[in-house]
Each structure stands twice: as structure tokens, then as C-alpha cells.
């Protein structure tokens, strides 16, 4: 999707602050309502991830976006306090219904606060705006799609769960890049050159189609989706129902046999 290339995947705190001053951006806080009420980035709307997941049908998401005063052109920035994974899932959903200009704040709310940046308890209200519905099936992978696609050459399936979970069971052919690999110490995503090097080492070619998945609702793999987008991977899809659905559908699963790796855990 060449038109996406010009759009940013993340935005840094300073740029967001200046856009906030210009009132040219809609910010969405995806933390729980009680956390949001305690304090949030000024003028941010609250869309707890759980609310989105309760009904993430395109119609419902569209209505929510409109109620936040988002039209087709409004730049949207999403943040969370969960290393960017929840924000990614919401951002991806907005892109899926056809909103082009969505990015992730490149720090978490916790980091935002510890940087001493402005926050507020005031709950803003927004005038409703119109938004068109223009689904992007090309960023979504379903179980059926995945089943066929993974047999193809130049399709790479990436499991973003932690290593032990992956070793225990995963979709045949998937490689494992744990979500913790993606962040740096102070940003939700590593610098581009580092991500590029990591992907190169793992033989994730830049012209490959990449499908990401994680445990259940596509949060950790949502972050991986944006990590790949940030280094301009043209063709990334999120298997949004992820491993939970795959298992429920009784699709094939493989495991690393003959080793008791769980017993290396101190938990």
C-alpha cells in the first residue's frame, strides 16, 4: 500500500505536543476508564481496549470514531501504558475500517508522565463527525487466509508471544520474535536501524509478506505489525484472532519436542 508509506507509524512526544497546541490531532487513550479519569493527555478521548474488543465490528468502530469527532482526514494518535501493544490493536482497527492517518505515541503514558509532560483530569466532549467506511482486508489475516498463505514462498509467519509459549506450541512454520524484542529502553519501538538489523538477521526479507500473531486478541502482534510498518515493510497482515482462535478451530499445532524448557523458569 504505497499511499501508507508517506504516513508516520509513530509520533514523538514533542511533535504531539505541538499538534495538540494547534488542535490538529485527535488523541485516543486506550487505558481503563478509571486510569483515564485519574489523568490523561489533555483533550484525549478514552477508548479502553476492553470496550473495543467487546464489539470490534466495523460499524461499531466507525460509530465510536465518529463520536470522537474523527473524520476521514483527522490525524489520530493512540497511546497506552502497556508498552504500546494495546494502542497498536486500536490503531490497527481504525486503519482496518479505512482511517489512514493513525500513529502511535512513541512512549507510554507512564513515560510521558515521568518526562513531566502535561496531563489533565478534564473529560473532553467532542462534536460528532462523519467518517466513511472503507475496509482494508489487505491488513487482516483470517485463519483460512493464513492456512493457505503460509504454504506460499515469501510469506513469513511471525509469532510474537514469549519464547516459552512459542516452544510449547505454535502454528507450523511460524518464527518467533517475542514482543519484548521490539522496544528500546525508552521507546515502544526500537530505532529503525536496529529493527532492520534484527529482521535481517532473522531473514525477514523486506519484500516478504509478513503475518503476525500472538496469544489471543492481536495486541502483542499488533505492536509487531507497527514495528514492521515503521521500517517500511509494504505487506504486513495481522492475524487478529491469533492463536486462541487457531487452537479452537483445531488447526495444526507444533511443539518443540523432547526438552523440558519450562523447568528453566523461576516462576
Amino acid at each position, binding site marked *: 500500500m504505497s499511499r501508507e508509506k508517506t504516513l508516520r507509524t509513530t509520533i514523538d512526544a514533542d511533535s504531539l505536543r505541538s499538534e495538540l497546541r494547534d488542535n490538529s490531532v485527535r488523541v485516543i487513550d486506550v487505558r481503563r476508564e478509571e486510569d483515564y479519569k485519574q489523568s490523561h493527555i489533555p483533550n484525549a478521548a478514552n477508548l479502553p481496549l476492553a470496550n473495543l474488543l467487546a464489539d470490534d465490528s466495523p460499524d461499531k468502530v466507525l460509530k465510536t470514531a465518529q463520536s470522537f469527532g474523527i473524520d476521514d482526514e483527522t490525524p489520530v494518535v493512540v497511546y497506552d501504558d502497556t508498552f504500546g501493544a494495546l494502542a497498536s490493536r486500536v490503531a490497527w482497527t481504525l486503519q482496518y475500517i479505512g482511517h489512514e492517518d493513525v500513529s502511535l505515541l512513541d512512549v507510554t503514558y507512564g513515560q510521558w508522565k515521568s518526562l513531566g509532560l502535561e496531563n489533565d483530569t478534564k473529560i473532553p466532549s467532542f462534536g460528532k463527525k462523519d467518517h466513511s467506511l472503507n475496509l482494508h482486508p489487505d491488513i487482516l489475516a483470517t485463519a483460512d487466509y493464513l492456512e493457505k498463505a503460509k504454504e506460499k514462498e515469501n510469506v513469513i509467519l511471525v509469532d510474537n508471544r*514469549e*519464547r*516459552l509459549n512459542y*516452544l510449547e506450541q505454535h502454528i507450523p512454520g511460524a*518464527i*518467533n520474535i*517475542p514482543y*519484548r*524484542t521490539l522496544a528500546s*529502553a525508552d521507546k515502544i519501538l526500537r530505532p529503525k536501524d536496529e529493527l532492520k*538489523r*534484527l529482521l535481517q*538477521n*532473522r*531473514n525477514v526479507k523486506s519484500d516478504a509478506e509478513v503475518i503476525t500473531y500472538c496469544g489471543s486478541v492481536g495486541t502483542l502482534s499488533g505492536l509487531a505489525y507497527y514495528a514492521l510498518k515503521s521500517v517500511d515493510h509494504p505487506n504486513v497482515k495481522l492475524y487478529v484472532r491469533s492463536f486462541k482462535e487457531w487452537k479452537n478451530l483445531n488447526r495444526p499445532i507444533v511443539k*518443540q*519436542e*523432547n*526438552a*523440558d*524448557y*519450562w*523447568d*528453566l*523458569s*523461576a*516462576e
Partner: protein
Amino acid sequence: MTATNLKQSTEYVKPKMNWAKLEESENFANTVKLYRQGKIDPDNFRRFRLQHGAYGTRMTDDYAMVRIKIPAGEIYPNQLERIAHLSEAFSIGNAHVSTRQNIQLHWVVLEDVSEIMRGLAEVGLTSREACGNTVRNVMCSPLAGVCSEEAFDATPYAFATARFLLRNPMNQNLPRKFKFNFTCCEKHGMARITDVGLIPQTRDLDGKTQRGFKVFLGGGLGNKSFVGHQLEDFTPEEDILYTSIAVLRIFDRLGNRKNMARNRMRYLVDEMGWENFQNLVLKERMVVRATQSVIVKLEVDNTPKEIKRPIRITDTDGRSPPDGYSRWLKTTTFKQKQARFRAVFLTLESGDMTANQLRSLAKICSEFSAEGFARNGFSQDIVLRWVAEDDLPRLYSRLLEVGLANPGSLTMASPVGCSGTTSCNLALTNSHRLAKEIQRKFLELNLDEDQTLHDATIKISGCPNSCGQHEIATIGFYGGGGRVGKDMYPVYQLSLGGRADGEAMLGVNCLRVPAKRIIPIILKIIELFKKNKKQDDTLASWIHRIVKGNENSEIKSVNDFKKILEPLTIPPTKEQDKDFYADYGSDSSYHTKTGKGECAA
């Protein structure tokens, strides 16, 4: 109680040494690519990989274990935090503290090893020469500098030796791996069961005190184990490097490069006879002394360590310490020679720590240790030294919050277990989990508090190789497979009476014990001890008398033990007890499965 909260600086103490070379990371990444493309043959790649500290992993070519060397065991807070991060990003979110002051990251994708190397290099750490036919991590007693029995602190000598040998061409292609252990005193360390073991000592020379070492050569554990020989009465400090070079040169020249099973230096000593070997070393040392340029000198940095931390950071608010404090105090802390300071040995399970525990430990050691860093020890443990006694209750509370306050680290209740079937290609049993099971049972029974068990040890290896050091344990085990008809079950060979101190000896084989009977057997041994012990006996001293044939109670020999214990080891049928036929950590029937070994390679 008044608050004496001195202001804590959030600055971490910086590592003294930089062991890293950043280029090695990129070189490793490129070499992995060439190997995957088939441009490097597997044997050459394997040698290269091991030289850079990456082991193979059980039943797969896709993963490696990265062994991070912690020379002399000194590990700094920023390094702990970095290892925490690397474990989450590229490993299993846990790190493993080994018996040789390494920290290991398991189940790393081979293609990610270079990223770990890079991350380590940024904080001054390396995995270089942690495996392969090289001089492995140079160890030093975690009590060096604080032990009341020591002649002087050996740490600077361990550092200097490590620095001289790391990446030194003379150490890249030895017949086999080679190990140096520095200790503080006769009691705390393993000078006699390693290739070169060194214990500090002093002597008076013309009214001046001269520093030197007792140097032990040719000891070691393995399929065949030996206790090292002392080279001479006194090896002055200026001869340490010459001696080390001499020994390495002899080993390089004469060591067995053909027979894998007999290529450690101890076999060379055994074949030549000690006196011949000793003469050769002394002669070679003269040659080395005469031919090495003056620049080759052990660069010992003896500047005293800065102990700059507040003596007291405690504010207990008059509250009494949480439950379990006195038990923890009694079984995990060691009184330093410096009054009012203790060394705290953190109780881990088989040396495993989560990433979050590593992060907490970084903060805790920076806050509580007056030297501002931690050490790892010889028993899969981490030691916080220079903790002011007044701060111990609060330290305990902090450790409690992060699950690091278990009692028993300095007692028999903390068994050592090698990695076994959790990751090792040669493993026959899950020794790693077994050690954890024994530990949990011992703590449940409060056996860590039993003074008569304090100096006994339990050590477990998952196969006849001795990574778990079972041969120096009071009660040692190594894994194998047992069989009833077609059905296999995990079994361990029990050995008794091993020790690594001044009276070092290897344990004596007793009998084979099914994995699921090990805990009852150990408890039975303790019961027999209680029944037959003399007034001042400890379990270790009692067993020592038995293996030496000097006991006159009901049990006079290892054979008597065997007779009493044997009935407990009889296998039930599979119908009677299915669990008996499964190893710990597994619910399916046991079968042995091994791949190509590197622990033994």
C-alpha cells in the same frame, strides 16, 4: 527507632573492567549467515560458535545457549538490568546462574546470538571463550575480600589472569577446555578440583610479608575425576603468570588431541605421573621466565575497593521484621571479617531467575551493598556482600517482595542441578527440576534450619558428565535410564561423601535410585544419621567417616547403606504406579534421548 535515611544516589556503580569487543557481534552475525548458506562447514562453524560462547541446544540446530562470562563473579547493576532485557528479548525471560560464575541465556535463536553479544558488549560483558577448547571463565571465591580465613583478597589476581588470557592467541585452540579457580581459603572454594586452583598465602621474607599462592594442578570432575596436586610449597605472586603460561604451554603441546574422553589436563598428569609433570612445569616456567619479555606481567590492580555506601539506610519504623526473618538470617548470611557487615547468599532454585528478579536485584544491590555490585558464587547463587547488619531486616523485606527471600542458600536445602533435559543435548534426566523438587521438600520440612545438616551438600548431574558437580557432593546423583521389561524409568546413581575442601575427595558410588524415590532416599539417609550420629556429628562428618571406613555404628560402609536403601528402590509395575515411569516435569512415559554432546566436547 529513628530514621537515618541517607540520601541514596540513583547512580549505579560502574563496572571496573570492560571485557567486550563490539566487532565480535557483527562477525558472529555474518558467520551465522555463511553457515546457513552452506559456505562454512558444520565442524568449523561449531568451533567458532563455541569459542564465542554459544552452545548447542537439546535436539535442535535452531537454538543456542549463550554463556555470559562473569570473571571473578563480579556483576554490576547495569549489567544485571541488561541481562534482564536480553533474556526477555531473545531468550526465555529467565536467566540461569551457573556453578562457574557464568550467567546463561537458554533457547536463543542462533540468528539472535549476535544481538545478545552486542547488548552485552555495550555493558562491558562478553561470552567470548565461555565454551570450546579455551580457558574458561576465571573464577574467584565470592567471599574473596570478606572471608576471615583468607591471607589476602585474590580478586585482583583473578581479574589480571582473566584479562591476560582473554582473546590471547595461546588460548584459542587447546586440546580441551581449561579452568582456573581462585579461592579465598581452604574451606570456600574449589582449588583442588580444577585444572589450576589457587589459594592465597603469605610468608615472611627478610622481615617483609610476601604474597603468594598454593597452586594446585590437574584436578577436575568428569567421567573420571581427580584431585589436584600442589605444585610447590609457595608460589610467589610474581610467578603466578609464568606458572600459568608454563602449564598452558605444556598442555597445548602434550595434551591428548585425539581421544575426546581423555583430553582434559588431568589425564595428562595421570599418564605422565605427577612428579614428571611437576618437573616439566618447573622447567617450562624457567624457560618462560627467561624468554617472555618484561612486558608480560600480571597487571594486578590492588587499589583498595571503595566502600562508599551509607552504613545504614534502614528505617524500620519500629516494626519487627516480617515472618521468616530469623530463619533467613541464619541460613543465608555470612559474617564478614569486617565487623557489622554480612554477605547475603540469595537462595535461587537451580540458579534460575526471572527478568524481573534480575531488575529488582540491580536496584537492591545498588541500595544495600556497600560495594554497589553483586557476585555470583559456586552454587548457582548470587551473593550480596557488604550489607550493613542493621539493614538486613529491610533487605529481607525487599527480597520478599520479589520472591528472592527463600531461606537455605547456605545449607543442604539448596541443591545444585545442572540443566539436564531442560536444554542439554547429552542429558538423560531432568536434573534441573529434581534439584528444585528436593529444595521445595527440604524447605517444607524446615531441614534448612537443622544445624547438623548445614555443611552437607546435594548436587545433581543429568548424565555421567559432572556439570552438576555431583562428585564433590555429600550426597551426589547423576542421571541415567532404568528398565523394567520394555518400560524405562529415570534413575540416578547415588554417590556419597564427596567434598571439595582441604580433604577433597570424590564421592563413592552407592546404588542406583529411581528419580521418583530420591526424596525418600535422602530422607532415609537423614533418618539413619539421626539414629547413629555421635554427639558433635554433622551429616557430612558422619558420612565422611563411613566412606573412609572409620565408622563403628550400624552403618560401617557404603555397602551397609546400600543394603538398607535397596528395598526402597525396587520398581513398582507400571499399573501400580504410572508416575514412577515419568521423569519430573513430564507426564509422559520416560525414554532416553540424546543428541551430539558439547558439554563433553
